[in-house]
């Protein structure tokens, strides 16, 4: 027997999973307490704590970078300052305070939106480079599908060329409803089956994503 297997954590995980699963089919009320909800509340609290632990870990990593020798980590300094300031503002003045909403409206949302904008430019450039890198059937189909969806999405084409625009709208609807939805359904079914398999593996202790 491999003694390195985390017996305690595995036991807790398997027991909790089995309990939640069984209680899902047959709720158990002891002392007028629904133990299924109790376990779910524990999981929710642990999730919140995990988020806090992640923030602490991020702060510790970048704080160590600030102490390390070599080039000064400006990015780490900015991240640490932003984290500290935001944490203080939100904690002290509230999450919907003026200061907190200012940070959200004028720092966080523009920064993240800019990243999405850069993503748009990058995707266009990558599509243009696709024919340079490799030209085969799949690359041509991929690129053609993207172009058709973009063209059918654009209201300008529909308005400038009404007759063509209607056909393009119909083509887009077909792409969305048939190929895209069909592929998405397949992915969803795969996710469902994978979830079941993963759940069984976790309940059996074969898969231990919690470590070990």
């Amino acid at each position: 027997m491999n003694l390195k297997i985390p017996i305690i954590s595995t036991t807790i995980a398997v027991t909790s999973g089995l309990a939640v699963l069984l209680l899902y089919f047959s709720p158990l009320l002891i002392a007028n307490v629904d133990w299924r909800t109790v376990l779910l509340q524990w999981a929710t609290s642990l999730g919140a704590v995990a988020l806090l632990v992640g923030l602490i870990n991020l702060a510790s990593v970048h704080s160590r970078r600030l102490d390390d020798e070599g080039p000064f980590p400006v990015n780490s300094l900015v991240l640490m300052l932003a984290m500290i300031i935001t944490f203080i503002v939100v904690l002290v003045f509230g999450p919907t305070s003026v200061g907190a909403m200012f940070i959200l409206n004028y720092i966080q949302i523009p920064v993240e939106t800019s990243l999405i904008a850069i993503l748009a430019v990058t995707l266009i450039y990558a599509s243009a480079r696709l024919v340079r890198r490799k030209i085969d059937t799949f690359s041509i189909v991929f690129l053609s599908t993207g172009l058709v969806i973009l063209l059918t999405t654009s209201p300008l084409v529909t308005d400038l060329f009404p007759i063509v625009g209607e056909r393009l709208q119909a083509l887009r609807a077909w792409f969305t409803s048939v190929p895209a939805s069909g592929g998405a359904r397949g992915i969803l079914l795969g996710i469902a089956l994978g979830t079941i398999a993963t759940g069984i593996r976790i309940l059996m202790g074969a898969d231990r994503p919690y470590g070990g």
Partner: protein
Amino acid sequence: MQTVHTVGKMADIRCQMCGKFNPDDLVECKHCGARLKPLIAPPLSNDDSGTNWANASQEDTLSWLRGLGQDEENQESGLGLDDTDDLPDWPGSSSTQIESASSGLDWMDDVRGNASIDSGALRDESVEETPGSGSLPSWLSIDEEEVSEQNPSFVESPEMESPSTEDDWLNTLSSEDSLTATVSLPDWAEQSKDFAPEEQLSDDLPGRLAPSPQEVTPEPDDFDDDLPSWLKSGESSLFEQKTQLTPESPSDTELDGEFPDWLDSLSRKTGMTGKLGEMPEWLDENEPSLALEKQDEADEEGTLDWLATLGDVPEEESGSEDWGAGVGSQSGSVGTVGGLTLDSEDSFISAFDKGETPDWLESLQGSEVDYLETSDTLSEIEPSSWGLEQTPELEDWQDTERPPQEPVRTLSPEDSDISGGLPSWVNAFRPIDGADIATEYTEGKLERIGPLAGLRGLLNPEADIAKTTKPPTYSDSLQVSSSQHANAQLLQSLIETESVPQSIPDVSPLSSQRILRVIIGIVLILTMVFPLISGTENIPLPTQPLPQEIQSIWNLSNSAPLDRPVLVSMDFDPGMSGELEVAAAAVFDQLMARGVPLAIVSTSPVGAGLGERQVAYLQSNFPYDHHYVYGEDYVNLGYIAGGTAGLANFALIPRQSVVMAYDSRPIWELLDLDAGNPWLSPVMKNITLLKDFPMTIILTDSPDIARNWVEQVEPHLQDNALTMIVSAQAEPFVRPYLENTDPTNRQLEGLLVGLRGGASYEQAKNSSFLGRLYWDAFGVGVLVAVLLILAGGGFNYLDQLNKTRRQARKSKPRK
């Protein structure tokens, strides 16, 4: 061993393999081909039950040897000597058989001389009634062939201790149609044939038939003490009812200086004389001083003179008188062994001269003694345990090695060097006769040394693990072909290149790719920023009628009650706010224009802030008649931690999962839990569970979040309608929850996708919000993106084509 059945006039032999009967004249079973008759000896038993003691299992047969090794407690307490149940089968059975005169002590009959002994019989009256009394004890009648065949006939017999077992071995002794049962008396028995058996029965009996000490309580000089203890035990049991043992007076048992008492008694009867030095000293065990004196003398001589004397018995006498010859005579194919058995017996007994009485012999006085023996047991016993280790005869015998195919010689009295060192019961296992046949037909390794020398097919006494042969060495290198090796190297090179960081080649700032990238960015920004800045509304909003999924949202928003809030989940990242806020603006505007209360929640840490931003944007840019106040018109439930588990918990017990509102209270006011409890606000006064919400709107750009809401929350909504406002990238994953031919089983009531859906909603609402503002920029930007892809693709294709041509031109050799 086969079983003989007499059917009518013809004796049939039942095959032990298939159980069918065969004519007596067949050697092999006509049904299965198995050998019906042993190679050496004929069957010894007529018992159909097959419970002959000789068929006892090997394990059982070993038990008596184990019993020989028992401690002296049994000897001291005399266990089993008084109880026939504890006795070995044959003594126990003998006592009863003698009493019932059913079969009698056959081998004792042999001792006393049976009907086949011309020189006179020392037959007991009860024995006279038993036909075939010339049989021997079956332990002496073990067929050598059976031993050589790993003794398969020594099958386990549960009746070993039962009366039927008594019949077995006695039946073995009984005459058979193929059993001549000619038993020769030993010399001493032959010489004592004239004297009354009733009087000297106990004296003449072998020790195993001698009465137990408890029964007889012999004097130290008692005649019985001259016998081996194993002779006594049997005798006590056998004749405790038949024979009243009367210890002789010490005067009668005193040594005359030449013979042990019992031999002395015999000598008085027969006139046999001898010297003390020729007597085995075990007979003088009650005379330790005398035994010690003679031991030194015997050691100096290196051999026992008396054995030599016995070995000098004329062949014709030994062949006809030795009782041990019954073994050979029973086989029917072997001549008389003569003095072999007696010699071996005496030499065996001579071991007591060394003062090394073997334990197994002492244990014969114990309770359980099985006179069964197997070759394995014998081979495992050290000679020292027999007390024969210093016996020259035994050493000589052990040193004797025969060639593998050399047939075993028929033992004769002249083989005193072999037989003299072994007890007769051991010799009974030896291939006395028919050995040639045995060696011819028996496969397996020939045993060269030990008591079973000359036998084949014996079980190896050593475990295979004990064999110290060097294990073969296997190469740890993988045997692969050249192609496999090449593929492995290719795979290894691929893996290595993945792990090694590739150096980015220095690209000139004016390289074509860098220029192309910059051009794409500039064109996109200019084409999209210009309509936003100029505020153009050149491109009209979609004029098509609202799709059904959007129409459902429209209807739900218009019919939402004012006393219960609509649950709105802001589950998207701030980077996607440009699309989702525009799409949701018209819906929020519709709800807020009617004054429908809102309850904002999020599974994203910043989602609650985005909800606050949405409400604040609409309220600041589109002044409504009903100004929304936090706590009165809307409430922010904040962030639901825990992902899927938190969402399930929220669906089950929303009041317990969210206990603090996402508001603007400073930290010093957070201690007032009631003030921060959103469920105590007027907005949530009618809400206990999620089903109490009239409508739920999920804003997300993630298919996973949409799936979690459908899977975890939707079953608890009941009358609460679940709708979604998603980005265009998540539409294919969400639409399957909407598309259901049965509207009652739809998991989604309404779906609004991206900027186009928001613009359509605004057009249907006939209002102008962010959708209208972004619509021109969106239209131009998408078209420009398509053009950039086409232009860039063409440029890259031509650039690559030119590069290929240049390389081909360079590589072409100049003429």
